């Protein structure tokens, strides 16, 4: 091979060099397109990880303070977080078990209320009155030592 290279004529050699350059350049380009997604993929994300609990944002916390309840998304589900008169926190699925309307909290009576057909639930999620057939799914709501509020799915 080496001998052959030596005997080849000059223009041919430069063509070969150019081809080698082209191979190298396109290889480099290919490498970049492969590396880019992987680098992006590996870059740590600012938000919290896959599962784990949902933290209430400052906005949501102040709403909770103000209205005694707030509705937040927890892993794709709407969850109502409420604060009982004794400051205890509760969290339930905000989807009424009857027709799927969004539930609100009535602090005056300490009941969860669905406006669609006047379904009422107590602070255990059990049906007090109205057409809902089942209790509301419960979530776990906790106040952290630093005052932030964390909602997580309750293990059955």
């Amino acid at each position: 091979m080496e001998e052959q290279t030596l005997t080849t004529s000059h223009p041919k050699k430069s063509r070969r060099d150019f081809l080698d350059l082209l191979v190298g350049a396109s290889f480099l380009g290919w490498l970049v397109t492969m590396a880019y997604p992987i680098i992006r993929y590996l870059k740590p994300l600012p938000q919290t990880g896959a599962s784990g609990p949902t933290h209430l944002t400052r906005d949501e916390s102040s709403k909770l303070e103000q209205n005694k309840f707030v509705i937040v998304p927890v892993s794709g589900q709407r969850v109502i977080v409420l604060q009982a008169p004794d400051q205890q926190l509760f969290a339930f699925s905000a989807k009424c078990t009857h027709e799927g309307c969004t539930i609100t909290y009535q602090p005056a009576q300490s009941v969860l209320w669905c406006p669609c057909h006047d379904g009422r639930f107590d602070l255990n999620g059990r049906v007090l009155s109205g057409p809902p057939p089942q209790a509301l799914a419960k979530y776990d709501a906790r106040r952290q030592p630093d005052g932030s509020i964390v909602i997580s799915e309750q293990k059955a």
Partner: protein
Amino acid sequence: MFSSAAFAVDQNSTKPNPKLAEMIAAKDESGKAIMGPEEQTYFNGLNDNLRELLNQAVQKETITRPEHLAALLSLQLRPQKMELVLQNNCLLCHSDSANHSADTLFTLTPAPGATPSHMNLKEVVEDVHFRRGVSCAGCHGGDPTADLGHAHVKEWPEKDRDKNREWIVQFCARCHSDPTFMHQFNPALPTDQLAKFKESPHGRTLLEKHDSRAAQCVSCHGVHGIRPAKDPQSKVYARTVPETCGACHADSKVMAGFTRADGSPLPTTQLAEYRLSVHGQALLGRGDLGAPACNTCHGNHAATPPGIAGVSRSCSLCHSANASLFDGSKHKQAFDRNNWSECAKCHGNHTIAKTNDSMLASGKGSLCGDCHREFAKDNPNCIATADYFRQTITRIDEARNNFSAISEKLAAKGLDVEPISNQLTELTDGLKKSRTHIHSFSRDNFQQVALPAEQAVQNTDALVKKAREEYNSRQVGLAASIGLIGLLMLTIYLKLRRLEKPGE
């Protein structure tokens, strides 16, 4: 073929006495065992107590024939119920076809003409009274433990019981209106049924007009197979109530001659209308026990039409938000002035159809339009408001349907649609609220909930745009990398060709 050896039982358990053993092993004329395999299995599984009771019954000759025994065993009763049957001489005697003619024989296949629950043995043992120990003698008198005693039939049932049914309510009420007596069985059960019944049109027709076509206890609860209302097989179970009421109210022959307070004949179309209504579809179609049946609006023992003022009160039991919005609206006074029933005026009573945005129309032949032309004298403000409601709601609804479809497509393309779904939930919620707030018939009130919904439409739109951009950038990225791979392939191919050139 089964032999008697197959029924040999454990040393520990009570052995069948010779008579019973003989009955169990008996064969009919063709040589076939009278006990089928199921009855034999059931017998083998009986506990000592029941075996002893069977021994006694055979000894006392309340069970004398293998066919009779087979019929009892074929009921496959649970032990507690079998115990009640075996201790009840009335039932034992009245279930033996050798002793009784069809009209007094309890059997699994009642004679044609007998109502299913009337002489059906299976129904009788399911009866709540029977199960709680108020068996035959509780109503018919006599002593179920005595060997024979037909004294019970002398007074009751009365001979002309079909012609005059007024006695039935008093008869049931002997126990059911006595709080002390009922307390032994179910302290939570009310005892005011008769009092309510007397005040109801049913009660007045029966007791004051002495018309025995009117419904009384038995009409709804049955005779021998009475079950509690929460039992799905009960005649007064929520899903069965429309059928039970309709047995009379949907039958024009039965209802012939009955009139409303204003003298017009009572219609018989309620059941058919109810079945098509949103409530009927929910209760009978989807099995939503929260949906109202006849008794939810009309009452049970005091069943009566709710009347004009009562309609809205019945509806507001569930539709409280709509009711309170209506009460605060301008319509409230107008309806009161004209003595219109509030909800039913637009939604109907038994026919209540699933609401539809097209109800909000101002043109001729439309709900809002026709009424307003007549009573609001074409007030342009009202027409404009109705149109505004309709347009806003249609816009939100269309956006929702549109975005749902887009969201599904985007999800199939592998994009993250979670934020879009969250906004869509918000949007759906806002739409529901907007439809409810129509009942305020006020632009300001409506806007309180419609504006957030419209905001959600805009948010969703922005998110959809973002997702589409993401999808485009994916394709651009793909094109770029495919292009580069292609270039690399091309250069390698050229290189290969050069390397393989002969002489190199």
